[in-house]
C-alpha cells in the first residue's frame, strides 16, 4: 500500500485554501468549515480505528474534553484562548491515554471496545450535565472578543483557514504514521494481534499510543468548535452525534487512508445539506440518511471512496493495456 506523498497533501490544501478568495458567501464557508471540522475529528478516529482497527464509538469523550477545557479555562480562569486550545488538546490526549490504558489492559476488543468507549463518553456527558464547572445543563457561553489574540474573528475566512491548517496537520500526521515503523506495527495489530506479538510488537503499547494521538487530534476539533460557536453544552460536547460523525467520515471516505476522512467528511456533509434542502429541517433526518449511507458503503465499498477510486484506476489501467494490445497486436 503506497499512500499519498507530502506533495499531494500540499496540493490539496493549497486548492482548498483558495476558496475564501473565490467566494465570500457565509453559507459556503460555514458549510466547508464544518466539513473540515468533521474531517479533523474523523482523522483522529481514523488513526485509531482506520490504521489500528480499534473501532471507537465514543470519540465524543475526546471532542468534548477538548471543547470543555478550552472553554472552562477562558470562562472560569481567564486564560488566553490559544493557550486554552493547546491545553484542551493535551487534556484530550490525557483522557485518551487513560481510557486506552483501562480498556486495552483489560484486553477489550471489537464490539466490547466500541461499547466501553461509548459508555465512557456517556458518563462524561452525564457528569458534564450536572457539574457546576461545565455550566451543568445551561452550558458555557464564551464572552465575545473578536480579536485574533482571543481566537475569534470578524469574518468566516480566518476560521476556515485555521480549520484547514488543523486538517493539514492531521493529514501530515496520518502520512507520517503510514510511513513509520509505528504505523506498520499499528496496522499489524489491526490485521492480527497474536501474529504481531510473535514478531515483537508490544501491541498494548502501540494501541495506547494510537489512542493518545487519536484523542489529541479529535480534541483539537472540540477546541475549534468552541471558538467557532462560542458555546458548548454537554449534549454537543459529549453527545453521540460527534462520535457518529467521527467514524462516519473515515468509513465513507476510506478507513486507514490519509485522505479518507477528508473525502468522507465532504461527501457526508454534502449529503446532509442536500437532505435538508429536500426535506426541510426535520430533526434527525440527516442521521437516517447517514445510517443508510453507512449500510451502503459497508455493503458495496468496504474500502470507501478511496478504495473505489483505486479500483477504478486499476480497471482503467487494465482497459488501457487491453486497448494497447489490440492496437499493437
Amino acid at each position, binding site marked *: *500500500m503506497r499512500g499519498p506523498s507530502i506533495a499531494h497533501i500540499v496540493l490539496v490544501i493549497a486548492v482548498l485554501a483558495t476558496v475564501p478568495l473565490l467566494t465570500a458567501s457565509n453559507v459556503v464557508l460555514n458549510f466547508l468549515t464544518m466539513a473540515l471540522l468533521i474531517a479533523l475529528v474523523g482523522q483522529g478516529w481514523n488513526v485509531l480505528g482506520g490504521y489500528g482497527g480499534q473501532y471507537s464509538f465514543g470519540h465524543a469523550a475526546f471532542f468534548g474534553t477538548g471543547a470543555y477545557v478550552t472553554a472552562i479555562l477562558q470562562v472560569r480562569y481567564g486564560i488566553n484562548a490559544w493557550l486554552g486550545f493547546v491545553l484542551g488538546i493535551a487534556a484530550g490526549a490525557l483522557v485518551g491515554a487513560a481510557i486506552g490504558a483501562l480498556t486495552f489492559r483489560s484486553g477489550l476488543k471489537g464490539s466490547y471496545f466500541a461499547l466501553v468507549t461509548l459508555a465512557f463518553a456517556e458518563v462524561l456527558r452525564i457528569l458534564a450535565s450536572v457539574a457546576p464547572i461545565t455550566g451543568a445543563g445551561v452550558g458555557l457561553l464564551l464572552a465575545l472578543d473578536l480579536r485574533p489574540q482571543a481566537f475569534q474573528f470578524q469574518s468566516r475566512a480566518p476560521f476556515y483557514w485555521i480549520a484547514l491548517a488543523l486538517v493539514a496537520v492531521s493529514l501530515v500526521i496520518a502520512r507520517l504514521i503510514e*510511513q*513509520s*515503523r509505528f504505523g*506498520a*506495527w499499528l*496496522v*499489524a495489530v*489491526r*490485521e*492480527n494481534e*497474536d*501474529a*504481531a*506479538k*510473535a*514478531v*515483537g*510488537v*508490544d*501491541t498494548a503499547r502501540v494501541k495506547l499510543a494510537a489512542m493518545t494521538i487519536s484523542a489529541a487530534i479529535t480534541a483539537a476539533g472540540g477546541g475549534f468548535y468552541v471558538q467557532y460557536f462560542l458555546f458548548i453544552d454537554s449534549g454537543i460536547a459529549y453527545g453521540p452525534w460527534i462520535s457518529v460523525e467521527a467514524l462516519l467520515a473515515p468509513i465513507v471516505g476510506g478507513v486507514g487512508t490519509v485522505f479518507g476522512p477528508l473525502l468522507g467528511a465532504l461527501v457526508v456533509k454534502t449529503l446532509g445539506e442536500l437532505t435538508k434542502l429536500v426535506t426541510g429541517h426535520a430533526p434527525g433526518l440527516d442521521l437516517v440518511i447517514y445510517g443508510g449511507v453507512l449500510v451502503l458503503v459497508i455493503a458495496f465499498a468496504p474500502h470507501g471512496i478511496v478504495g473505489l477510486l483505486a479500483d477504478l484506476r486499476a480497471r482503467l489501467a487494465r482497459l488501457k493495456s487491453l486497448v494497447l494490445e489490440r492496437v499493437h497486436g
Partner: protein
Amino acid sequence: MAEPLLRVERVCKRFGGLLAVDDASLAVDAGRITALIGPNGAGKTTLFSIISGFLPPSVGRIFHRGVDITGMPPHLLARRGIVRTFQIAQPFGGLTVHENITIGAHLSRRSRADALAAAAEVANTVGLGDVLGRPAASLTVAGRKRLEVARALAAEPELLLLDEVLAGLNPGEIAAMVPVMRALADDGITILMIEHVMQAVMSLAEHVFVLAEGRIIAEGAPQTVVGSPRVVEAYLGHGAAKRLSAAGGAHV
C-alpha cells in the same frame, strides 16, 4: 555441561480439569534442530505457547540462556530472539506478502526502507521472492506456511519455534521446504520444531523429544526414539509394540 539455549523445567499446564502438559522438561542446545513430536492432543502446541509466552504455565520454569523467562510476554521474548510461527498460519491478511515480512523485519530496524529491503531479502531465501506484491490472503496453504517462516526469520531469531510448518503440504511442497529449514540451521539459527511429518523429523532433527498425554516419554536421537516401545505405544495404542514384535516386524 553447558547451559542449553532453552531449558523447560517441570512445566505443567492445567485447563480446568484437563492437565494438558504434565511435568514436562526439555532442553534445546544452541545451533541444532530439536524436534518435539507426539500424537495428536499430546500438548505440543500448548507447550509451545507456554515457551513463546502466549500462555503462562500453571507450574514450572523456563530459562533462556540461564535467565528465567517464565511468564515473559511474547513481544519481549521476540526481542530476546525467541520467535514462533503458528500451526494455523496467521498472516496479516489485508497486507501484501512484502508488508507481512516487513513487520518482522521492523523488530530490529526502525527505518521503513531498511525493513522493506531486509524483508525482500528474506522472501528470496524462503522462495517468496516472486509473490512479494501479492495479498497474503491470496496465498495457498504452502505459501502461507512459507510466509509464517519468512516473517519469523525477518525478526532475526536466535531460537526459532516452528509449529508444524509442514502440516497440510503435499510431498512435493515438503521436499521443497526441508532444504529451506536445513539452510536456516546451517545459518546458525537454533530450531525447535513441532512436526508430524516423520520423514522430515528423521532427516532434519538431531535430537527428539516425544510428548504423549502431556508427558515427555522419550528423548534422544531420532532413530533410537522411534524404535522405543513406549513411543510406538503412544502412537499406536497399548500393547502395540508387543504385537508388532510378535508379528516379527514383518509388517514394519
